[in-house]
């Protein structure tokens, strides 16, 4: 029982981060048909920038997070202006977008390393404090992350469902042709999508940094495929789906280590659980948990 609680908690923590990262990727896909292979590096960037501001410059932690989210937005915007906009104008196809996104990731990585070094970093927060809960050990930082990430998920969900620009984004994703003719400013929608995904990337990076306790510059990159798995699980292009898909995948990856699951998956196969989930979902329910049959995949 305590095992179940423990793994569920661990899964929720990981899952909530997956969810936040996945929703950014999913929004970008739904609006721009872009599979963002650079998403992982935005996480790393966010974590390192927050580290730099809050630890090196000793600024307020929350302030640092906000600044690094703004920076994530800024870089996304910059790339939209110099890169993605031009590619769309050139009618670049899926392959071109794939390769450019990978290229951007290759460019971002050394920049991060150049700016922040290769060392392992940690935030100024007690990573050892734990609470006992029905026999499970709940880490203080992870509890914080779970609370703040859940709050963020709520805010994101509310934003997408209630804010006008959120509705415009969903409308555009749902029917781009109609969106353009019914008065939705497409440029604004695209920009908003980039800004949101940039901000969410940084935020997820900070959360991931907190959960890991310490992080280095390959943090985000190594999680990228798990994010994709979460996106696919929750139906590609469906923002709510990505949120739920992220949570489910996190839970699934952790719970798979429990012995009731085929005797428990050895921990060195943990990433395979994510990849296999991805393949299996694509295989048997390609429309994802929120998609409907007949949706083109």
């Amino acid at each position, binding site marked *: 029982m305590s095992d179940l609680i423990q793994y569920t908690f661990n899964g929720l923590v990981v899952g909530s981060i997956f969810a936040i990262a996945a929703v950014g990727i999913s929004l970008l896909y739904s609006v721009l048909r872009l599979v963002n292979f650079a998403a992982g590096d935005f996480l790393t960037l966010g974590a390192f920038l927050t580290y730099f501001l809050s630890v090196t410059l000793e600024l307020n932690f929350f302030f640092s997070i906000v600044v690094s989210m703004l920076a994530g937005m800024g870089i996304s915007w910059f790339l939209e202006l110099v890169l993605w906009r031009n*590619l769309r104008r050139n009618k670049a196809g899926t*392959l071109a977008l794939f390769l450019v996104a990978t*290229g951007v990731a290759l460019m971002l*990585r050394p920049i991060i390393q150049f700016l922040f070094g290769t060392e392992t970093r940690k935030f100024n927060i007690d990573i050892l404090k734990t609470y006992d809960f029905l026999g499970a050990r709940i880490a203080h930082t992870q509890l914080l992350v779970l609370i703040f990430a859940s709050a963020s998920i709520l805010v994101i969900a509310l934003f997408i469902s209630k804010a006008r620009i959120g509705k415009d984004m969903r409308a555009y994703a749902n029917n781009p042709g109609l969106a353009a003719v019914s008065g939705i400013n497409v440029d604004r929608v695209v920009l908003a999508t980039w800004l949101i995904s940039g901000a969410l990337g940084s935020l997820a990076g900070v959360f991931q940094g907190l959960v890991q306790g310490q992080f280095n510059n390959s943090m985000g990159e190594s999680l990228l495929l798990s994010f994709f798995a979460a996106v696919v699980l929750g139906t590609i292009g469906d923002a709510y789906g990505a949120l739920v898909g992220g949570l489910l995948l996190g839970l699934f990856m952790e719970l798979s280590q429990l012995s009731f699951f085929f005797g428990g998956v050895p921990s060195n196969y943990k990433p395979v659980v994510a990849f296999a989930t*991805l393949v299996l979902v694509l295989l048997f329910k390609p429309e994802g948990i929120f998609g409907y049959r007949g949706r083109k995949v």
Partner: protein
Amino acid sequence: MDAFVQPGFWVFVLALAGIYGIFALGLQIQYGVGGIMNFGHVGMMAVSGYTIAVLVIKYQWSFWWAAFVGVVLAALLGALLGLTTLRLSGDYFAIASIAFAEITRYWILNTDSVTGGTQGTLAIPNPLGFGGYTNQPDLILTWISDRLYPIVGDEASRDMSMIFIVWPFLFLFIWIASKLQQTSWARVLRATREDDDVPRSLGKNVFRFRLQTLVIGSVFGGIAGVFWALQFALLAPEDFLRIVTFYGWMILILAGATRVKGLIIASIFFGFLYGSTRFLEFWPLSLLSSPERAYLRVFLIGFVIVLLMLKRPQGLFGKRQEMVLE
């Protein structure tokens, strides 16, 4: 500059470029003919390379039979990938194929008893003690370099012998691929790249055609794996990260997605680009520390692909239409 003009390293680069050329040729057949975006191609290379190592070291097979089985297994992996996920459309398939390759890599990484696991092929359990797997082909490589010695002197090396093995094959494969492209079979595939309904309505089993393309591409991935295994004489899971597939795509895009012959120049160009970034030691870059120059190298590779897609998406030889009309 002195170091830059020494031929030895470039011989290595050329041999490697040939291997990458064969690797990219597999992608070329899949994408350029069939429109399939396979981002897990490196998995095929890993499978065939590892099959050779395991069969030769663990079971003392002949290298050549092991290579044959390796290519067959790569083809089977391609078939498995296709049968399970080829029904998906473009980007979904691409993501699934990455996952496929990663699962393969993790299996190699974690199955010490067969693959040597994290230690690479040198740790494959081996009844005869430590041993490489290239003894047989090494005889041939030595034979070639002995023949080359009177001509090029000390430049005769294993790498140069590799060129004499890899490049003729690359030319042969490019010839085969260009023949293949002219067949009615490829014609149907080129049609499916644009539209499934037309060939289907004309009695063509589109799925079967696609699957065949994927398998043929995988065979070339497997063959590249054979040469890779030969070139490096030791394999480790870290050699088969997804970035390698990306390099293959980079060559393909340089060549122009449907230009088979462009692959020759593109492979050399890529090899040169990749190799020459190791020489960024001149002023003012010499002011940077060696780690900083190493970041610059990765950055440049990313920068070139982004610039290429932005300014010349059709590659060095392709027609712009081909990228735009996707």
